[in-house]
């Protein structure tokens, strides 16, 4: 038996977040998601989590594990870990953060291919940087880890949108000036930082921020 600490918080009910301790049974080599699921299925069915694919594809089970944003289905469990919701994002309940702002974000900043959809893009038209950036699972860990974002109401938009803009910048079909767009959104803030972290191994600073800055 092992210990898992979970930060619980229901904004409409609780004055502030609190840590709850659970004794969990996790398989040898099991993941943090297995431990969280054990709590939800056997110990406290009121615990709110968002997880759906169970292995790397959806990115929805991203949480804060011992103060670092991580994908819980890809992180091995060990006793005493502390798990909470992603930081700097609004909490709906427990480990579930509000992602509904993404729709407005995509629409406001036109984060989709604008231009000639009839171009036949061949393999040689696509750069290594583009191939790296399409690994993004929209887990939002980069937003939670960004040192330039101060919190939920930060004026700084953060690396997630710059990654999406870079993806379009490298897409031969897109005809918008994504560099100019990134500048207007404050990419200069990223210039001397480079502390973006992606649990899927995307080099956000190298492959997205620098190309948009140059």
């Amino acid at each position: 038996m092992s210990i898992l600490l979970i930060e619980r918080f229901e904004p409409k009910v609780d004055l502030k977040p609190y840590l709850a301790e659970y004794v969990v049974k996790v398989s040898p080599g099991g993941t943090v998601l297995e431990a969280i699921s054990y709590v939800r299925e056997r110990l406290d069915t009121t615990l709110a989590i968002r997880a759906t694919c169970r292995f790397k594809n959806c990115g929805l089970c991203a949480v804060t594990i011992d103060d670092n944003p991580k994908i819980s289905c890809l992180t091995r469990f060990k006793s005493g870990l502390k798990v909470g919701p992603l930081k700097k994002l609004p909490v709906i309940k427990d480990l579930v953060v509000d992602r509904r702002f993404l729709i407005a974000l995509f629409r406001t900043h036109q984060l989709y291919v604008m231009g000639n959809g009839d171009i036949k893009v061949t393999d040689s038209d696509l750069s290594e940087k583009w191939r790296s950036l399409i690994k993004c699972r929209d887990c939002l860990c980069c937003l939670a880890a960004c040192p330039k974002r101060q919190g939920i109401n930060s004026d700084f938009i953060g690396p997630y949108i710059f990654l999406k803009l870079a993806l379009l910048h490298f897409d031969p079909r897109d005809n918008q000036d994504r560099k100019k767009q990134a500048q207007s959104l404050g990419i200069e803030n990223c210039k001397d930082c480079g502390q973006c972290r992606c649990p899927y191994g995307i080099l956000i600073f190298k492959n997205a921020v620098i190309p948009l800055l140059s």
Partner: protein
Amino acid sequence: MAAALGAVEQGAQVSLVCKEPIGYGNTRISGGIVAQPGYFPEDSCEKFIDDMAKAGGYINEPQLVRTVAKYAADANQMLEASGHLFQREDQDYAVIQPGGHGVPRTLTSYGQGIQLANALRSAVLKCNVEIVEECMVVELLKVGSVVAGALALDITTGETVIFKAAKTIIATGGAGCLLYPHTDNMLSLWGEGYALALSAGASLRDLDLIQFLPFGIVWPNGMEGIGCGEPGAAGPEGVIKDAAGQVILNRVNTLTRGELVSRMCKNLLKDKVGPHGGLYLDPTGNLETEAGVKSYRQWKEIGAYDSIKLAYGTKAYHFQEAFEVLPTQHFTLGGVVINQTGETGVTNLYAAGEVTGGIHGADRLGSVALLECMVFGFRAGGHAAKKAALVNGPDLAHLTGPQYQLKQYYGRTGSYSTIRLLKILSASLWRYYGFSSCSYSLMKLKRTTEIIKQCSENIKTSAGLTYNTEVQRLLELKKLIEVVDVIIYSLALRSKADKGSIVISKNGNELAGSLLPGSWGDEQVVHTSD
């Protein structure tokens, strides 16, 4: 999402109601491969139709198969116009030949299914579609015999939402979680689309038929059911062994999914299984041949073995040791009966995608799932939009009674946990229906379902409205019980027939079933329980 795009193209106002955040259905876990019949001169729509019919044991619906073939190129073109990128070498598509296809005709995607889902999401966001995320449809609303919208639960707020619609399209995906955790599907797929359609008056076809992937992870618990490879991923030297180390299957990579699963299942019912009930995939011989090493590198490159690394460690990942595997549920073959434009036979109600039945018959060719989603999504959306322009919006003013207030499900003080009941029901389904069924196992499954049904009337739920998973699971459980009733009924009918499709509808509160003979003429073959 394809249905929404099809409807928008015809000028309709669309609300897209998603149980998960938008774009998080099974497309996201797919390989992003989509068939395009007739792309090369040596191929044709007729050859593709033959392949689908053969794979489906000739119990698929010919008109639906022909529709998929006829509109495949248009659907893929629309997908590209929506922003998706298929892989091309020079100007030609890069194609592969999944098992069961007579010729290479399957397009591949950059970034697999995630990019395909993201492209559709972007296309929908680009349009003026109202997107309602994390909202679960609980009931289709009817005025007389006509569907007029849907009653839904906003999972985030706990509020009841009523959608009024001239036309409604069900695109809720399959029911992978029936056998949870023995599934590689997204965990939101509890099959409520089938129950919604049945209650509204639609028929369900072959709901007992499911497709397995041969290799699923068995351990650790949290990864149970995650896929770890197609037959081809075993490599030319991969063999299946029992727990005693005896080779029981050779040339694994030459078999189709269905053939391999069928042969594995026969051995799973014997006593020489691993500690988690599985068999052993021994791929170590691949490291000793050039072809084996080449195959290993190709499959590794596309991430086919990633789950092995996390679950079983680096030795298994590098093919240096055998590892335990068990078939895992991948696709629900049966579903809502539709015609060539996705109409269900219930006025104003359409269906598209995995929730429908009859397209694949008894088994599905790889790369046709996404294709049929696109073909029937676009077609159903387009047809619904054209017809919607001809009817007035429904009057739902009468929907004010307590049965339309989902708050009744919060703060219940019964004895049972819905999450626990769901686990018991899915475990029973795995045990009594997963790989084989007989009259005894059907009787056991029926009894378990009846007990779960009784317990579901005595449920304990918390009162908080915000993201209340207990209430969500209760609503899913109620739908799942209806689905299981149909499966049991279908299995019982199938045991009395040696061929054909089983069609179930609701007559009042009772189920009524019939056997539909195949319509492929002399080609029709006997369908077996394999």
